[in-house]
């Protein structure tokens, strides 16, 4: 039980880009948009039984016809500049009710993805996800990057609209990436393969909403597109973004004025000119974060 390949395409030193569901499905939406844009072809899957509980049963006229499991599929595309393998997982393998993958199953799945990467001679791997940030939804989301290899730091710093996670103010060079996005980075390092995790920023107050955040997915895709040296049509994400923006704005108006006032300062801080009052201090950031967390905890308690 493991990987099942339907075919073995000849690929020239491809890049593997992997994604799973996570906060606002930022990474998943980015890679799925890429799959559609590239018209990538499915060529294999990780067999699901050992990892997942079934997601759907289909019964017709009293006969069990089909049982479906969350899928974990591989796609490929020969691109002029660089061949690509995409991995899209419909769920993260979790244990004992945890939200994100961890433990034996997650490690095993990460290794299966790496087996495919090595089999096809991948020289680089990207994972993608969300970065919960003290930012405002009217601001362009940045992309936080974490490479697994020191040599990649200079390259990563050169990406447009991208910041190294360790350079984010107040983090002191520290941080963590939960779930398979992080785990895969580690497994790649163990096997000597270079890898970078790209995370699109989502405002802290939107992280718990059952909404996608297409503008962050777009930010991630812009970085990947440049890395692949291909022009991607991202209008699908723009359309989605417009639809969701209204819902976000409606939600935002429901946040109490005092909290909203503080969140609005994030927007002002971003557009502050030198003559204007300086950006929000670290202490103020902490306070905003605490107030926002308190508010959403209260909301959760009421719900």
């Amino acid at each position, binding site marked *: 039980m493991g990987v099942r390949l339907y075919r073995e395409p000849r690929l020239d030193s491809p890049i593997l880009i992997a994604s799973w569901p996570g906060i606002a499905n930022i990474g998943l939406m980015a890679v799925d948009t890429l799959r559609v844009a590239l018209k990538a072809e499915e060529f294999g899957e990780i067999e699901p039984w*050992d990892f997942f509980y079934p997601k759907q*049963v289909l019964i*017709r006229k009293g*006969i*069990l016809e089909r049982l479906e499991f969350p899928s974990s599929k591989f796609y490929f595309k020969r691109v002029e500049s660089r061949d690509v393998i995409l991995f899209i997982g419909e769920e993260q393998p979790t244990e004992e009710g945890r939200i994100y993958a961890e433990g034996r199953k997650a490690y095993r799945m990460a290794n299966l993805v790496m087996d495919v990467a090595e089999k096809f001679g991948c020289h680089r791997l990207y994972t993608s996800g969300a970065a919960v940030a003290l930012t405002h939804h009217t601001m362009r989301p940045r992309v936080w990057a974490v490479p697994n290899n020191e040599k990649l730091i200079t390259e990563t710093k050169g990406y447009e609209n991208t910041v190294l996670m360790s350079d984010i103010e107040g983090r002191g060079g520290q941080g963590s990436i939960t779930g398979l996005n992080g785990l895969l980075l580690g497994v790649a390092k163990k096997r000597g393969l270079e890898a970078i995790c790209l995370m699109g920023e989502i405002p802290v107050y939107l992280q718990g909403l059952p909404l996608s955040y297409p503008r962050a997915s777009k930010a991630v895709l812009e970085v990947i597109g440049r890395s692949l040296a291909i022009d991607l049509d991202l209008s699908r994400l723009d359309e989605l973004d417009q639809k969701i923006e209204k819902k976000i704005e409606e939600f935002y108006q429901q946040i109490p004025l005092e909290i909203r006032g503080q969140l609005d300062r994030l927007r002002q801080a971003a557009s502050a000119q030198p003559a204007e009052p300086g950006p929000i201090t670290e202490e103020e950031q902490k306070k905003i974060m605490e107030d926002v967390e308190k508010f959403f905890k209260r909301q959760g308690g009421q719900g």
Partner: protein
Amino acid sequence: MNQGHAAKIHKEPGLRHSRLVLGWREDIGDFGQEATGYLIQKLRAEEFAEIAPEDFFSLGGVSVEGNLARFPESKFYVCQEHELVIFQSDSPAAEWYWFLNAVLDVAEHHCGIREIYALGAMVSLEAHTAPRQLLSVANSAEMKESLSRYELAGDMDYQTPPGERPTLNSFLMWLAKERRIPGVSLWAPVPFYLAAMGDAQAQKKALTFLSDRLDLRIDFSDLDREIRQQNERLARARSRYPQVDDYIKRLESNLILSQEENGDLLKKVEEFLGEED
């Protein structure tokens, strides 16, 4: 996972062409546990194997039920006279694929299983006085056909709604289908206001079918007595609380109660039956 060691066979059951009936403990109104327990007791079935819990259950302590410590159990019983195997188990909390395969391995390799009957209950919005119909979902057209002479509702169309997951019985039936073992899930409707305390009538519906189908020749007089007592208690609840009577009358007239009324009926019936206990 060391799947080969999950099953512990205490004594070979000595069966070659048997049938398997199974039920889960955490079923609605303890239906699976009660129905399989009834069979074990009536047929004097003997335990012969179990599945070790360590790979399938969270073993962070024990649960306490009825003042007693409880530990997850997954046991096989055999009734040689009827070539019947009964499996009664807590629902596994992890590694479902391996757990269900361990069940099928014991059934197939140690008991020569030819058919599987998986018992389950479902919440019904109908009154307890309404006639019950057992729902069936077969894992093959042949199995469905072989059940056609019984009074089963066996033409259901269903797709798991978003946000929900298939039942363990569906998972098991699919695995049995992969192994070409015919099987059927049987679903006994339990009125929602009896879901917490159990429903002898639902048990009898499923057990009568099994007795006929598997030629078990069970005398159900004790279960009939239990049903009579249950109906008498519910009749007393109706006389004590006119509101309960009104709710049940409306259900008997095929009217739907509001969510609040459902909750009120459930609460009052539970309170009344709790007082009588």
